[in-house]
């Protein structure tokens, strides 16, 4: 067929996803919106009554909310890896994933950004976190890792939104062509009047290259900064130098699993097999396997060195992690993060999409549990044996509700994205057709 017919077909097939929502879509959307609503209700309850409704018990004063924060920021990293880092490596297979991955990044960051506020207990004083001249004569403490978070995650969110939007501009021009009326106006405004002239493409390519170059160090640095929330303390199990690369690898690991979780059903339901092939999934599976190995390495090194160093508190903490109150969670974590992904060494399993989907679900669970285990176990077994075993920390319905609400919010945003924006990067796919 003539070349332009191929491109027209790509436009049609990919933009078909933006058609009228079917019954399945509305059902799933209703479910996720319900989750969001219940999450907000729980938050409102906490807002009225106080942080006591979360299960905090001395010395565990950081728990599910921080777990969720770290989890969602981690999810975001994989999107940037696929868009920016793989672009710099000139990896072809990225073009079928990068739009959903970038969307995932932006939405995950939006969800993650709520959690410091929820965790604050008094969210109405959130503005204390921002550095601006004020009549209280107080500046933020730049030496605190919590402020580094503000800068790092804030930068990451801004740059991700810009990167997402920039990637969308040529595609929005395509959508503008296919719509009428008020929708046409909206997409015309959003696409800034993009035409595709030589000058525009020249500047665009350079812009994209630079944004990718800027976003790449963010992948490593933002989750390093988040890990330093913990590593800057002196708690056993938290104060360890490997945290930065370990958390970054873990972030890419959980984010890649989330990409698989999102894209497998999307490909099936929207019939995008021509553009997202099994080869693409195999490449993503390799990234999953590789990051799983790094995470396992970190587990081994941390535990091994705790024993080697002879510090009684470190040794007790690692014993507690494996055999203490949270041992069920610990072994879930080991199984889901270290053992199950090992099966991906087999090529047949890497190309089995249903199996990949199951593995990705397990990894999502395993990584959430890993954050929980790291945070809560180190707090529960610190240097003061008097408070060990006084009362085991258990999440309450408020925390569970808010966690479910966060998942609901993420999927709601994603579902809305599916209907309003081109779900794959049409322009980049056309380049390689």
């Amino acid at each position, binding site marked *: 067929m*003539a*070349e*332009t*017919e191929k*491109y*027209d077909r790509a*436009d049609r097939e990919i933009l078909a996803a933006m058609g009228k929502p079917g019954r399945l879509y509305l059902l799933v959307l209703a479910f996720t919106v319900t989750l969001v609503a219940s999450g907000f209700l729980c938050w409102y309850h906490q807002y009225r009554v106080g942080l006591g409704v979360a299960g905090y018990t001395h010395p565990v004063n950081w728990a599910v909310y921080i777990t969720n924060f770290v989890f969602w920021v981690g999810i975001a990293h994989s999107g940037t890896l696929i868009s920016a880092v793989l672009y710099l490596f000139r990896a072809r297979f990225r073009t079928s994933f990068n739009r959903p991955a970038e969307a995932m990044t932006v939405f995950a960051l939006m969800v993650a950004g709520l959690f410091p506020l929820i965790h604050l207990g008094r969210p109405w004083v959130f503005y204390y976190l921002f*550095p601006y001249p004020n009549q209280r*004569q*107080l*500046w933020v*403490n*730049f*030496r*605190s890792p919590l*402020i*580094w978070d503000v*800068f*790092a995650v*804030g*930068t990451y969110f*801004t*740059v991700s939104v*810009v*990167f997402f939007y*920039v990637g969308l501009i*040529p595609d929005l021009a395509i959508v*503008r*062509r296919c719509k009428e009326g008020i929708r046409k106006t909206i997409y*015309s*405004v959003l*696409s*800034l*009047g*993009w*035409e*595709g*002239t*030589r*000058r*525009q*493409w*020249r*500047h*665009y*390519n*350079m*812009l994209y290259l*630079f*944004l990718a170059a*800027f*976003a790449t*160090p*963010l992948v490593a*640095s933002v989750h390093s*900064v988040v890990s330093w929330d913990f590593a800057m303390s002196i708690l056993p199990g938290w104060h360890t130098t490997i945290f930065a690369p370990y958390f970054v690898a873990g972030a890419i690991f959980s984010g890649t699993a989330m990409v698989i979780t999102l894209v497998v059903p999307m490909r099936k339901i929207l019939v995008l097999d021509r553009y997202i092939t099994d080869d693409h999934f195999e490449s993503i599976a390799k990234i999953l396997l590789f990051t799983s190995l790094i995470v396992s390495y970190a587990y081994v090194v941390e535990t091994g060195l705790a024993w080697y160093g002879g510090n009684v508190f470190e040794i007790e903490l690692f014993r507690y992690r494996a055999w203490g109150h949270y041992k069920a969670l610990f072994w879930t974590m080991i199984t889901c993060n270290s053992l199950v992904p090992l099966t991906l060494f087999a090529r047949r399993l890497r190309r089995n999409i249903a199996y990949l989907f199951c593995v990705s679900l397990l990894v999502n669970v395993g990584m959430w549990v890993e954050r929980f285990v790291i945070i809560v176990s180190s707090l529960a077994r610190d240097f003061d044996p008097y408070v060990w075993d006084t009362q085991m920390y258990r999440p309450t319905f408020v925390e569970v509700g808010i966690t479910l609400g966060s998942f609901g919010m993420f999927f709601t945003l994603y579902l809305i994205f599916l209907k309003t924006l081109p779900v794959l990067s049409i*322009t*980049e796919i*056309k*380049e390689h057709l």
Partner: protein
Amino acid sequence: MAKPMIFHEKEEFLKTLRRLVREGVAKERIRVITPFSVAEVEEILPRMPSHVQVFALAGAASGTVGGFAFTILSTLSWPLIVGGKPIVSIPPFIIIAFALTILFGALSTFLGFLLLSRLPSIRRIRSVEEYGNAFVITVEPEEAK
């Protein structure tokens, strides 16, 4: 306005473009519209590298300098004597400066792109000539001197 030549095959389009250049048509008069970025166009009609990179460098540099200046000067003006670290402690300030380098670099690059591409273009937002997935060459008529 000259009549645009519309192509539905990339190779035809590139052949015509090469022919025009060979015939000595001034490069500034050739306007090209493509549905996606075609690397060969840059080879046939070469120009100086895009000045977007100037914006990038300027933004990043201002971020680094600004990050350090902001943190150092504000901690000197309103010192918070907590934590046992020096008031002006460079290791943590590196993180802040790094974040601001990336932030200002990215934002200024984007701004540079908008300025250099003359976007958003109000005229085009209101009505734009849609060529779909075709490749278009327009040769502007020569200016009467």
